[in-house]
């Protein structure tokens, strides 16, 4: 089962993603509400995929992506963003993000994107 770490500063968005992914057969390895927490949890949990919000307090998603890639260059991180953050997204892809989803999203599309990244 593919284990996912969900990173988003809003509890609502985390719950939403958790529900979508759990229903699709993903295992929720953990949740983090900022980049710093995400890096720590990544070290501990070693998830197969991370869904990473970009705009977050403490440490944003781009910085967290960099740190995670330092720990594990093969980490599969899917960025989660809103329309209007193309530059951030491009930077994330350059830094090794494997995919991205744009809010508002629909469950089947999110599942499709994560399955693609997980190569299921």
């Amino acid at each position, binding site marked *: 089962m593919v284990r996912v770490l969900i990173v988003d500063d809003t509890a*609502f968005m985390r*719950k*939403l993603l958790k*529900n*979508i992914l759990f*229903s699709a057969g993903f295992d929720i390895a953990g949740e983090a509400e900022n980049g710093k927490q995400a890096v720590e949890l990544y070290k501990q949990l070693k998830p197969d995929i991370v869904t990473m919000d970009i705009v977050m307090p403490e440490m944003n998603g781009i910085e967290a992506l960099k740190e995670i890639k330092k720990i594990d260059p093969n980490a599969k991180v899917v960025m989660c963003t809103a*329309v*209007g953050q*193309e*530059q951030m997204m*491009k930077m994330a892809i350059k830094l090794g993000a494997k995919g*991205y*989803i*744009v*809010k*508002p*999203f*629909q*469950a*089947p*599309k*999110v599942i*499709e*994107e994560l399955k693609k990244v997980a190569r299921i």
Partner: protein
Amino acid sequence: MPETKLIAEVFDKDWVKVEVLIGEKSMTIGKETLDFRAISDLELTQHAKKECIRIKAGRDIFINFGEKQKSVFRYLAFNMKSDKFAVYFLSPAIRGGVLVSDSKWEKGYFSITESAVWFLSPEKQIRIPLSSLGSVSMDKRTVGEKQRLVLAITHMDEKEVVTSFILCPETTLELLQGYLKRILEQQKPKERLSELEEQILTMVYTGLDSASIESILGIKTDDLNKIYDKFVSLGIARIVKVRKEIELTPKGVAIVSESAKKLGGGRSG
């Protein structure tokens, strides 16, 4: 399109075969001549069990051109009464939250008719009813290795949010943004939604069912139903299914008891 004679079907209580002559500025359907400038909108639709074009010209004309449908539709879309702006467009750029990887920038027109806006190019004639528009905003995108100001438009298409981008001179972008914002302002619900209501709306869009929404937000069915009723009254949602809640009668309980016995049959406890 050079002057073309076609046999089509027009709906007049039933589908009737008719000769259509399509010219440069008008078309003749049977004995009636229709100036293209009199066409205020059109769409590909289904009517009386047939795929056809609905032409809005004072009244609705339903006409089926059979295998020539798409080419006639394209010709009419370019020639009907509309305000056309030469633009580059990328549509769809994002669908349901995921980038549409095979979509590319096209040279064409952003066209405005009475009840829709259109992306027009020789390959695409995308009609977006004004009622389907979601949002409009300026965005910076990389186009041909340059940072360009574009207009991002979202609309609903088959229950998905689709984002499209328009690139054209900035003065035109501002004009289009102003026009679309005015339309959106008119369509906004009169009442502001609470944070909880906005969350529920997002969850419905995401595709969650009522039971999941209740469980995630920790709210009761009756409270959720009240919020759904509000959405419906504001015109931002419609009812597609009425959920039933049941309790068992003694007969039903008896069946469950029997079933439990069967399940426990081979085991000691």
